[in-house]
């Protein structure tokens, strides 16, 4: 009996192992308060594609994509196409990019940003669950809750906005392919940017 117990226990173990997010697997769950005080979960976006954007408004790589209106136009383009877009801020209090709810809303206004919501992940729980490393780090989840893209916003790793038109827009390509029902060309790419300030 002892051996059976050991065996039974042993067989249970792999199921308990913690795993990093993987393409083709269910995206990690989250429950994070947004800048309007509502708790947002993965579940509520079931049935529609969801883009996650890790952000830190003072990071030069984020500035690159906001000063050029690249990020905002992607947000507008896809939220109009019924894609949900969550901007996630995982900077812990006292670090670069950490903002209050009011500041987050003000940033949205001043930058003319158009995300579905801005999530304030102060504890970094969601960031760690997604293994978000940099800002901007982008993820795409399909309407079944499966992670289908993770990585950079585009292919040229620089803080120079002049590079944006020359780059392959990895995230936009992924969302367009998903909306068109086609396979995603590069489902994992190298993200670039500032480290997430956990």
């Amino acid at each position, binding site marked *: *009996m*002892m*051996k059976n*117990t*050991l*065996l039974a*226990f*042993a067989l249970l*173990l*792999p199921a*308990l*192992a*913690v795993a*990093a*997010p*993987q393409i083709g697997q269910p995206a990690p769950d989250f429950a994070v308060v947004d800048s309007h005080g509502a708790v947002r979960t993965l579940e509520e976006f079931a049935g529609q594609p969801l883009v996650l954007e890790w952000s830190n408004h*003072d*990071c*030069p*790589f984020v500035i690159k994509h906001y000063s050029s209106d690249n990020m905002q136009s992607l947000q507008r383009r896809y939220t109009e196409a019924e894609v949900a877009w969550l901007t996630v801020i995982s900077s812990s209090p006292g*670090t*670069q990019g950490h903002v209050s709810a009011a500041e987050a809303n003000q940033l949205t206004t001043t930058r003319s940003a158009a995300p579905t919501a801005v999530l304030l992940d102060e504890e970094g729980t969601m960031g*760690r669950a997604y*293994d978000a*490393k*940099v800002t901007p780090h982008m993820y795409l989840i399909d309407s079944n809750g499966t992670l289908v893209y*993770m*990585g950079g916003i585009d292919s040229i*790793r*620089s*803080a*120079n906005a002049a590079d944006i038109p020359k780059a392959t827009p990895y995230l936009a390509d992924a969302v367009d392919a998903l909306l068109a029902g086609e396979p995603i060309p590069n489902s*994992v*790419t*190298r993200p*670039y*940017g*500032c*480290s*997430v*300030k*956990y």
Partner: protein
Amino acid sequence: MKLTGWRWRGVVGLWWGLLVAASAVAGVQHHPHIAVELVPEAVAVAPGESLTVALRLLPESGWHTYWRNPGDSGLETRIAWQLPEGVTVGPVVWPTPQRHPFGPLVNYGFEGETWLLSELQLPTTLKVGESLELAARAEWLVCEVECIPGEADFSLHLPIVAKTQWDTARREAWRAARAALPEAVAWPAQFAIEGRELVVQWQAEEVVAEHPEEAYFFPDADDLIDHAAPPQVVHRAGEWQLRYPLSSLFQRPPEAVTGVAVIAGRGYQLTALAGGEWQAAPPSDPPKQVLALWWILLLALAGGVLLNLMPCVFPVLSLKALSLAQGTAKARRERALHGLTYTLGVVASFALVAALLLALRAGGAAIGWGFQLQSPLFVGLLAMLLFALALSLSGVVAFGTQLMGLGDRLTSSGGYRGSFFTGVLATVVASPCTAPFMGTALGAAVLLPPGVAMLIFITLGLGMALPFLLLGLSPALARRLPRPGPWMETFKQAMAFPLYLTVVWLLWVLGRQSGVDALALVAVGLVLLALALWLWGRPPGRHPHWRNGSALLLLLLALATLYLPATLPPSGVSATGEKPHSSGYRPYRAETLAELRAAGETVLVNMTADWCITCLANERVALESEAVRSALAAQGVVYLKGDWTRRDAAITDYLASYGRNGVPLYVVYHPGQEGQMLPQILTPALVLSALQPTFSQPDL
């Protein structure tokens, strides 16, 4: 005054123009948090020669720039050249990088003055008397916690002369810059992708390292390894093997893995080729390889022998040994057979546990030795088993004598079966007692190929069975045991008490894992078990079925009490959760450790578990002694404690990074240095001396 748009732009343009004009002449340019300079090795060059030019980076203290593979974030420094026709330039030659942990991320880069070298080849068509015009634009990202991108334009005008004139004023600086480069070596090196891990292995017999386990490999490719995870390092006989979890960006194995190996602060540029059956001993170096394995096997054997002295094993085995001694000279052959079957029992059990452990590791589960005791159900069952054995020794019931091979059934076949199961039993009850030697042997074992790992576990079992096997095989030895007599009954009963104590200890572990309710319930279960055994031991009377049935029912009820601890979520009361402030430690988290180290704190890490006796003893004797506590306070050392009582993947990873897969593990981090591992048995003096700052190890 308000500037209109075009005027504003004009002012900026003018200012920018002045800046560029100034920079083209001046050497050092100052940018936010960093100064940069383009430094040619010669002041005048000859046609057809080569010329090395350095981009000299001088970040402020605490700020860093990035290597060609920047790690989890950041951006490598880039140089774009504008060269006259015929002049060619090679790729940037980088110094040996350093690891910069930040929270859960790790970057590769450089603090302090850094020289990035570019090798220019000049054509023979250059005309002596003219001037060589070189222009370069450098782009960098300089970070402390926050990052600032920067760029600078440089131009160099070098007279073309018949014979190159070196910049003698900077000869020393150039020497230092070249000394900081990784050495190009032709070491045999291989890599393999095993499951979700990259294994890199190289041979470097000529390299001597005081701490070979601190070796590191910086891969050139940024999508290969999880940069934040420290590698598992195995070093034996001039051969290093580093195992990293794969990056989440990893897609397909490359043809070759290139990068920089760092051993004892020196960098070596390596190319590792895809390896097939690469665990095989390399033909050039068979004796050393065998020696290293023998050393591990010897440790395993010694650890196994030590297990016999553990309080949970000794009572069971001492009785078995004495029962052997009862045999007469005629029974010599039987005695040998008993020794052998017992050995078989132990070895088979060890092999079973090893197979499970290896299968699980292959499946990617984060477990280590002692993992059985992380299950409250297993701990509860073990408590019941030991309690039943103890009751049987106390004479409550004769149950268990068969298992232990006591009595006069020595010559019957049932006796041999008894010997076999004594071996199994001994292995089961030995599992809480991780002898100090086993940590090293088993830590190495799981990193080795499965066949070798199995060999080590079997050797461990052999070590455990060894005293008994010798008794069985050597009549001379057996004769030296005390003569059997009525005193044996007294001895047997006395031996019950260490077992009772072991039960108390297991209950305590269970209580810490599942809370006081579960503990009380299992204690009731023990009483039911005692009742069942007592009934069993009564004379059958008129209705033996009634008696046996009740005993069986009680036994099942006793086992049912394990339901609660098995299903209850972790209680939250743990070795680290209790009284965090009064005891002066903080719970271990990888991020906390990285932050503290980044902040230049001295940190003491203690990885422990409630079921680990060695750990608890070390805490009582050394870590929580007045001397150590006051030294920790006086020197401002941060004491982090990790609790492995229940499974914890982060701690398993940390243990693996030091080549261990069990507790205890003690590591001291001095500011700017790699962790220094302490022995598994601590004394206050040893801890105090480890806390003294040392300056021996360079930063990686």
